C-alpha cells in the first residue's frame, strides 16, 4: 500500500461514527465544554496509543503500557511537587527502564508479549509500593497547563494534535522512522543493511517509554492524584486504538494520525457504553470484541480486494 491515507480515512470514519452516536445520545458532547470534558479523558489514551504504535511498528506487542502509565503517574504525583528536578530525573529513569525492557526482550529472544507481561508485574509492584492507596498531588504548572482554555479550540484537541504532528514527521520523513518501519516489516532485510536489531528495539522502546511518561503526566493532571492500578485498562484500549488506527500486528505500519483517531474512536465507544448503561465491568470484554471485530473486518476487506 503506497500511502497511509486509506488507513487514516478508515480511522477517521470510525471516530466520526462513534462521535456522532455519542452526540446523538447526549447533544452537549459537541459543545466547547463538552468537547473539553470528553476529549480530556482521551489524552492519556492518545499517548498510550502512540506508545503502543511504536512497539507494534517493529512487530512487537506491549501489554505493560497501562501499568507503566500508572507507575509514571505515581512517580509524578509523588516526586514532582517536593523536588521538580529529582522528579524529572526519575521520569527519565522510567524511560531508561523501558529501554532496558526492550534490550532484555532482544537479548533473551523472548516474545515481546511475555517480556512486557513480566515487566507489567514489576511496574505494578513498584507503583503499589509507592501508593498502596490513591494519594499525591499534581504540580501546579501541570494543572494550569491542563486547565488552560485557549480560544476556539479546546486544549485536549490541541494536545492530541501536538502528539500526532511531530510523530508523523518522524515516522514519514526521517531516516530513523523509515528504518523502524523497515525493521518491522522485515528484520532480515534491515539486518542485511547492517542495521542492528538491538538499536532498533532501543529506539522503539525508548520512544514508547517517552509517550508512556507523557500519558502518566496526563493522568496525573486529570486526577490530580496517583492511583497506580486504575490505568491498567489503558493497555487493551491502546492496542485497540493502534489497530483501529491502521497499525498491523505483523509490523511495518505506523500511522500516528490514525492512532490518535483510533484512540478517539475507542475512548468515545466506551463513553457510549456508559450512556447505554453497560456496567464498566464488561468494558474489557467489549474492547476485546472491538479489537477482534476490527481485525476480522480488515481481513475481509483484504480478501475482497484480492
Amino acid at each position, binding site marked *: 500500500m503506497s500511502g497511509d491515507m486509506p488507513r487514516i480515512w478508515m480511522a477517521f470514519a470510525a471516530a466520526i461514527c462513534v462521535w456522532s452516536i455519542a452526540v446523538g445520545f447526549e447533544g452537549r458532547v459537541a459543545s466547547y465544554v463538552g468537547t473539553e470534558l470528553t476529549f480530556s479523558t482521551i489524552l492519556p489514551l492518545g499517548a498510550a496509543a502512540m506508545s503502543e504504535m511504536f512497539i507494534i511498528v517493529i512487530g512487537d*506487542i506491549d*501489554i505493560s503500557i497501562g501499568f507503566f502509565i500508572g507507575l509514571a503517574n505515581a512517580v509524578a504525583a509523588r516526586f514532582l511537587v517536593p523536588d521538580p528536578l529529582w522528579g524529572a530525573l526519575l521520569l527519565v529513569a522510567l524511560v531508561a527502564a523501558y529501554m532496558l525492557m526492550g534490550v*532484555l526482550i532482544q*537479548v*533473551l*529472544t*523472548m*516474545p515481546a*508479549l*511475555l*517480556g512486557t*507481561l*513480566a*515487566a*507489567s*508485574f*514489576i511496574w*505494578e*509492584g*513498584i507503583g*503499589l*509500593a509507592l501508593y*498502596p492507596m490513591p494519594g499525591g498531588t499534581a504540580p501546579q504548572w501541570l494543572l494550569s497547563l491542563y486547565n488552560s482554555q485557549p480560544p476556539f479550540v479546546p486544549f485536549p484537541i490541541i494536545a492530541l494534535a501536538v502528539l500526532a504532528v511531530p510523530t508523523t514527521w518522524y515516522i514519514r520523513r526521517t531516516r530513523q522512522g523509515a528504518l523502524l518501519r523497515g525493521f518491522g516489516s522485515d*528484520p532480515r532485510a534491515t539486518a542485511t543493511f547492517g542495521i542492528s*536489531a538491538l538499536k532498533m528495539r532501543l529506539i522503539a522502546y525508548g520512544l514508547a517509554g517517552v509517550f508512556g511518561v507523557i500519558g502518566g503526566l496526563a493522568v496525573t493532571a486529570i486526577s490530580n492524584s496517583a492511583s497506580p492500578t486504575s490505568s491498567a485498562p489503558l493497555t*487493551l484500549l491502546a*492496542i485497540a486504538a493502534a489497530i483501529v488506527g491502521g497499525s498491523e*500486528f505483523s509490523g511495518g505500519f505506523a500511522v500516528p494520525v490514525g492512532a490518535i483517531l483510533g484512540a478517539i474512536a475507542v475512548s468515545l465507544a466506551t463513553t457510549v457504553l456508559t450512556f447505554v448503561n453497560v456496567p464498566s*465491568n*464488561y468494558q*474489557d*470484554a467489549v*474492547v*476485546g*470484541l472491538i*479489537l*477482534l471485530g476490527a*481485525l*476480522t473486518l480488515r*481481513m475481509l476487506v483484504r480478501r475482497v480486494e484480492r
Partner: protein
Amino acid sequence: MVRGDRPMLRGDPRRGRAGLWCDIREAPALVTFVGVLVEWGILGAIAHRGVAATMEATLSYACFLLLVGFGQMLVIALGNGNIDLSIPAVMSLSAIVGVAAMGAGSTTDILIGLLVSVGVGICVGLVNAGSILLLRVPPLIVTLAVGLVADALALVRTSSGEYASVPPGFVSAVSIRFLGIGVLTWVCLGLSPILGVIVHRTVFGRSVSAIGQNRSAAWFAGVREGRTIVVAYLISGVLAALSGVCLAAYAGLSLDLGTPYLLTSIAAVILGGSLITGGRSTVIGVWAGALFLGLALALLEVANTGVPGQYIGEGVLIFAVLGLSRANQLLIQRRRSHG
C-alpha cells in the same frame, strides 16, 4: 528471530531413538531441579515442618499449576507465537459453571458438574483454535480476547454477587489421600507418562514439534496444521477447566480464581526447559518448573514481602528464568556445533 537457532528434532538420527521424557545429557530441567532442592532445603529449615511435610504441602497446590502447565506446554510447543492467555479465564469460568451444575452434590451431580466444566474447556479451546485458523490473527491476541469474553461470561454468571458453595462431597473427593499423597498429585503422576508418550511418540505430538520448529517445513512434510492446532488448544482448555474446578474445591470459588496462573503457567513450562519459541517440550520439565514456582511462592510468603514485593519478585523471576533458558540454549548449540 534467527532461523538458524531452531533446535533439532528430538529424534535426531545422530543420537538414535528419541528420548521418552528428555535426554539426560541435555537435561534441560537440571538447573531447575537443583533450584527446587535448594528451595526445599531452605523452606524445610525455616518452616520447622519437616522436609516431607514441606514437599507434601507444596505438591498439594502445585498440582493445579501442573495441570494447566501441561496444556500450556503443548500450546507453546506449537511455536509461531502460540501461548494460551485464556487459561485463567477458563479456570474461573469452568469453576463457576461447574460448581453451579453440581447443585446438591450427590455423586452423579458432581460427575455432571465435572463434565460441564470440561465442556466449558472444550468450547473455549475450539473458539481459540477456530479464531486463530479462520481470522489469521496472532494467537496471543485471540486468546487474550477470548479470555476477556470468558471473564465477562463468568461475571454475568455471578452478577448476583453470590458464589454457589462448593458441595462438601466434591471437596472431600478432591482432598482424598493415598499413601499420604493427594489424589490430584496422583492424577498428575498418572498423566505424565501418558503425555510423555503423546508428545514424543504419537503423530500428533510429533506434528506439534514439527510446526514449532519450522512451520513451512512441517507443511511440506504433510503435517496437518489445522487439526494439530485444534487438538493442542482443546487439551489446554480441558486441563485448565479441570484444574479450575478442582481449585474451587481447594481454595473456594471466586472470579479471579485463575488470575495467578497467567504468568505462572508460562513460567513453569519455560523453567522446565521447553523453548518459548516452540518445537521442544519436556513433560518432566513442567514438574520441575511447577515445583520451583510453588516453593518460590511459599518462600516469598514466608519472607513476608507483601503484595508489591510479590509482584516485583514474580516479574524479575520471569526475566531470570528466560535468561537461564537462553544461556542453556546457547550452551546446547555450542555443544552440538563442536560435535
